[in-house]
């Protein structure tokens, strides 16, 4: 089975966001970039799928030269081959999905793993859009997956519980935490990854369907007050919640 895993290269979650000069993007100075945390679950599931059914796992990322770092990380975990779909433009999710769909089609992958969300723009949509462009099924936010022939059985996390979903391949699965425990890259894996190939392809220019006018910081909250340091503060706290905030 030919398996694809899509990877985005994102600022570390501990990043303190500073708005860039153009007021549209963050200032990248000093920002550490990592493989999107949810994509590690996707890589793990892709590797497990290959271990079970044989075949090949290809990691695909849309981005610039820097994204190779995250592709390398996937290669070190055990992915066979990497593809960088190169662009210097800031694409919206549609542009990213289009590029991914074209490549997945060209590679004839039957099952595609993605993260449920990229922790930069937090859209949670690239998987679903890609599946529609390909005419694949899609199950998002998956915490448990079974593949039986053409059939897929997955559990997806929703408010107040889980949905058990039945579907078929070819499919896109987006991974939520809980799906598996991503393996660490072994030293051997890291060494081997240096020899693995990362193919580069330029992607054609596309028009974005949305446009960011401005990025800004949220209005900082007024610092609150510390009412006290022991139980004597409790009645006052309850009074404030009741009379001032009117929330209880």
């Amino acid at each position, binding site marked *: 089975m030919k398996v694809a895993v899509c990877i985005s290269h994102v600022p570390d*979650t501990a*990043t*303190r*966001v500073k708005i860039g000069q153009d007021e549209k993007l*963050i200032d990248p100075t000093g920002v550490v970039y990592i493989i999107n*945390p949810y994509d590690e679950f996707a890589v793990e599931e892709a590797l497990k799928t290959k271990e079970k059914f044989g075949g090949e796992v290809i990691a695909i990322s849309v981005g610039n030269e820097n994204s190779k770092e995250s592709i390398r990380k996937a290669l070190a975990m055990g992915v066979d081959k990497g593809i960088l779909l190169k662009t210097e433009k800031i694409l919206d*999710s*549609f542009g990213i*999905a289009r590029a991914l769909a074209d490549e997945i089609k060209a590679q004839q992958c039957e099952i595609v793993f993605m993260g449920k969300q990229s*922790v*930069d723009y*937090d*859209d*949670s*949509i690239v998987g*679903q*859009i890609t599946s*529609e462009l390909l005419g694949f*099924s*899609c*199950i*998002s*936010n998956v915490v448990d997956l079974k593949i039986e022939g053409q059939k897929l059985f997955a*559990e997806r996390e929703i*408010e*107040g519980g*889980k*949905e*058990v*979903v*039945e579907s*078929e391949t070819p499919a896109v699965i987006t991974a939520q*935490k*809980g799906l598996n425990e991503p393996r660490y890259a072994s030293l051997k894996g890291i060494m081997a990854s240096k020899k693995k190939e990362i193919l580069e392809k330029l992607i054609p220019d596309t028009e*974005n*369907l*949305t*446009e*960011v*006018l401005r*990025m800004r*910081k*949220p209005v900082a*909250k007024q*610092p*609150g*007050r*510390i*009412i*006290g340091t*022991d*139980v004597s*503060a*409790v009645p006052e*706290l*309850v009074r404030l*919640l009741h009379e001032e*905030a009117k*929330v*209880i």
Partner: protein
Amino acid sequence: MSNTVLAILEQRENKLKKVSFEVLSFSKNIASKISAEVIGVVFGSNIDNLNDIHKYGISRVIYYKCEDLANYSPSAYTDLVIEAATETKAEYFIFGDTALGKDLAPRVGARLNAGCIMDCMSVDLTGDSIVFTRPVYAGKALIDIEFKSDQKVVTIRPNIFKANVSEVSQELKVELKEVSNLNLKTRVIEYKKSEGKLDVAEADIIVSGGRGLKAPENFSLVENLADVLGAAVGASRAAVDAGWRPHREQVGQTGKTVSPTLYIACGISGAIQHLAGMSSSKYIVAINKDKDAPIFTVADYGVAGDVFEILPALTEEIKKAKA
């Protein structure tokens, strides 16, 4: 394109969710700007509170009524929203940013080649074009964003936009749709409700605990307070990673993003990834024995004391207040 806004409503166990009424009000706002009509779209087999739609000033709803649509089916729901889109030539498609809305909205967008603006937190209708605001980097920044596409898909964050009751003179017209040959290729075959009560993503009040609780059994202090408040229990990642609490309760950048009316953080330091998930709560209370803990920078009210003393006292005091 006609001047129509489709409000895609969500039901679970035959009840339209609260967020659906927020979607209606939001849709009315958009519609007023572009002189459009709002049409509701619902899926299900036997929705109890369908008539409530009327209270929010809506007089037309398309109802895809079928046993097979009682549970979510991504493939069937997508097809039917597209059918409604073709029939009404709608310009806007508004969903709640829920597990269902997040899954369905981008599929609809992809079919229509419509841009998607997810998790909208505010909208500015005063200018020439409509400008949406949504969080990025888990709320550490906001973007103002607009559409370039003809058709437009928006999801709104629950519990942010008010569901405003408004009068309409017309009766509610429910258009029942015959459905046949549903595409059920991808469908929910079972809903496993988690034991425990409210989900943090839907709760109006959340009481969360962190590593400061020291041990899993001490979460009973958090649960007791949650009980008297009718609140959901949340947790920091430290508490989840330690195996004290299930992941579904995790609040933060890699957990759930929540915007309750009241968030009470107990023994949580307020790491940036935690703040990312809860700082848009309307009121925040922090209980932490370290007065310099970063959680106090976002808290409206803080108690710089010991959770083991404060929590039982607070639970009692609220019980008294409610009696």
